[in-house]
């Protein structure tokens, strides 16, 4: 009991830590700079801000859409943090999302799962998505263990392969493209059957939060506990800090590398599954839309903390939604949102310099 009390006060204290304050200040500074840029472009600042607010928290739909985006960022970010404990940098989130999306579509459309009971119609495609991402990232893990290939290079290049594989899948009728009825048939898959779509938490399409949210929260809690409280988490850290000493102490470097990269890949694949089954329903070229890289940035900014990933993922999720609306309503180019996001990264990284080596 006293333990829980202590940890509660500790985490309350954590919220008010200077590192958190500095991060908030950095985000605000970036936002102000963004506003200045909007002003400089001659767009009405008021219109732009109104559009931004409308696109993020203006309607229940906007809120749900933003959170659904954040889910993908968070999963990729948590995967990044897990890999990072073992001093691995997984930049392959984009490819892992693509492979997850492909697997989820394939199983949902052609896996004969639609008629199954008890949630299996969407759970099986989700599982397939996670496995696809896991296998994809494991390729990088095996390369690292067997040949010492730097995982930054291999995961990045595997992403390119996956993204082009996705293109092939939606271009080729032998793969996932929907049957060609005319020359106007779009290069995309059929829409997945209704039973395979993720159930909405409210059941109401005006607030389309899907079950990805609770699942992601549970995953985040499990990841945080495994990293902080288990021997596995400890061994992962040991390998990350000093692989030679860890190996002398009998901790298998290969196992740690493979397991952490595979876990990161599974989470990336799951993110792809959620995006397809919960939101897009149709597999298209460019379906991963850079979420893998945004998730990577969320993981980077969190500097090892799962809570930090959640915060950064929410920030980016809402920022993207607001940005899209700013473009549609106020005529502010989405590129500007990218610029603001970049500014946030730079200011937060700069703030990290002041916070010092402390982990948030």
């Amino acid at each position: 009991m006293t333990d829980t009390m202590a940890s509660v006060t500790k985490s309350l204290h954590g919220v008010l830590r200077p590192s958190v304050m500095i991060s908030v200040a950095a985000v605000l500074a970036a936002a102000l700079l963004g506003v200045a840029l909007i002003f400089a472009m001659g767009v009405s600042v008021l219109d732009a801000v109104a559009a931004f607010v409308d696109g993020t928290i203006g309607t229940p739909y906007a809120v749900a859409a933003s959170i659904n985006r954040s889910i993908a960022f968070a999963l990729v970010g948590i995967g990044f943090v897990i890999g990072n404990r073992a001093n691995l940098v997984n930049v392959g989130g984009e490819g892992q999302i693509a492979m997850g999306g492909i697997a989820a579509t394939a199983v949902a459309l052609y896996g004969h799962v639609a008629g199954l009971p008890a949630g299996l119609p969407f759970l099986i495609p989700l599982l397939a998505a996670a496995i696809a991402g896991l296998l994809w990232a494991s390729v990088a893990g095996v390369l690292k263990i067997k040949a010492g290939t730097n995982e930054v290079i291999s995961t990045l290049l595997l992403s390119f392969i996956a993204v082009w594989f996705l293109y092939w899948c939606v271009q080729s009728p032998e793969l996932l493209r929907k049957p060609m009825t005319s020359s106007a048939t779009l290069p995309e898959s059929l829409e997945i059957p209704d039973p395979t779509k993720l159930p909405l938490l409210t059941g109401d399409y005006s607030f389309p939060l899907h079950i990805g949210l609770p699942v992601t929260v549970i995953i985040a809690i499990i990841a945080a506990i495994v990293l902080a409280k288990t021997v596995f988490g400890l061994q992962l850290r040991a390998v990350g800090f000093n692989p030679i000493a860890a190996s002398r102490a009998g901790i298998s470097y290969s196992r740690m590398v493979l397991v952490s990269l595979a876990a990161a890949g599974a989470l990336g694949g799951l993110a792809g599954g959620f995006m397809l089954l919960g939101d897009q329903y149709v597999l298209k070229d460019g379906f991963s839309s850079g979420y893998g890289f945004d998730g990577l940035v969320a993981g980077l900014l969190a500097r090892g903390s799962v809570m930090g990933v959640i915060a950064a993922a929410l920030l980016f999720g809402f920022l993207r939604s607001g940005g899209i609306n700013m473009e549609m309503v106020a005529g502010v180019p989405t590129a500007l949102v990218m610029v603001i996001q970049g500014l946030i990264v730079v200011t937060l990284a700069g703030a990290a310099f002041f916070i010092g080596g402390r982990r948030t």
Partner: protein
Amino acid sequence: MRDPTRTLVEPLLVLQGVTKRFDSLVALSDASLDIMPGEVHCILGENGAGKSTLCNLIFGVHVPDDGAMRFRGESYRPSGPSDALTSGIAMVHQHFSLVHDMTVVDNVILGQQSGFVKTGVWARRLERLANDYGFALDPYAKIEDLSVGERQRVEIVKCLIREPRLFLLDEPTAVLLPDEIAALLNVCRRVAESGCAVVLVTHKLAEIKKAADRVTVLRGGRVVARSDRPAEEIDALVRAMIQGDVKSLDKSAASALGVVEAGSDHAGQPAPTETPAQEAVQIDGLSVIDGQGVTRLDNFTLSIGPGEIVGVAGVEGNGQSELAAVLSGMAVSSRGRIFLGDIETTHLGPKEITAAGIGVVPEDRHTVGCVVEMSVAENMFLNRLEDFTSFGFLRRKELMQAARELMTRFDVRAVSPEVAFSALSGGNQQKAVLAREITLPKLLFLLAAQPTRGLDVGAVAAVYGHIRAACQDGAAVLLISSELDELIAVADRIVVLYRGRIMGSCAADPRERERIGAMMAGQAP
């Protein structure tokens, strides 16, 4: 006290109440010191006493927080090593800074001149200089082909060619052969005779006896003793350095330090009188060939009985690291077999080796022995964290309790088992690693490589004590060390490694010292 002839000379360098803090740590406190031209001035102290800080202040690496320095009668406030060099102060660091695939003369020229490289001119200057100080150095040899001692000579020449007035050497003898140490001390004397002041930092008393004109002793950042006749006052200096009595020192530690001549009695450790019925460890024809096809360890054959300590002598880089790596499961041998009793451990990995009862104190503590970013407790049980789990969860309280007990038993001093390992001093880190390896559930064989490197006297004595205790409990011990005095003091017998081969073996007897030294240099016995 002072030699009357010296008082007539102005001191070359004067330090007045110099203080240097790093955060809360006071590395040097109110230190006053004067250095005369033409003397060899030894700075004596244990690790962490502030010796290196003192050097770095003089050489301009650090700026003092308090106090003043005067050099040749003028105020001296260097803002960096280049200021020190221009003023005429040169320094040989513990770690060399040489470009390995360049020649000696090119390394000397680096940073000395701009414009055209007149290699020939510099080479002639270099040879003349080496002649003046009585050593040989081929200006056109590549650094990578030189021995450690020769490399150090290059560092020394790099300094001397600037004709400095003050010459600092930070622990220069740590890496040298016995003969090379004597030669280096000779060079120091000659440099001093030419009128330059030599500041020699050391923790070895034997060197002070041989070379020092005056000695300043540091302890805990303070000047605690000075002597103008160090050879006669050596006991007092040791007392000042370690704040204790020489007689209370562990005999082996004392002889390893050079305080007393190593005795033939091994500090109460009875040498095994009869050959044991069965060898505890049997190493048979072990060879290691590296990626370039170079034989690093060549047909190493040795057996160690239970309760026996075998020392491996040799200059570093003669196969010791490869031997240790193979024995500890961190590398695979190209040929040969290793047996622990009846069990063959040749191809086992680190985890299985540990399980078989082989404890390893690695030579490079920071790379192989510990994870400095993690806590003391985690490090002390790094190889058996699984013992503290239920369902994968770490039983942290139990781990802390076990760590606390082990810390008490092995005198590992830390605020708590939860602090980062990096917060511990080198000696405490080593004691912690030793504790982890010695308390393996059934220790049959302890491999200790350079276990006392960088440790102060107290920690050295503790390490020897624990190694001996393990051996009295029946473990076989292989002690790899580049300190010959240490091996003579602690081991029962010694084998000498040279270029990966066993040159010969003999009893660990001080009378064998010269023979061992010769074998270390590659002469067959």
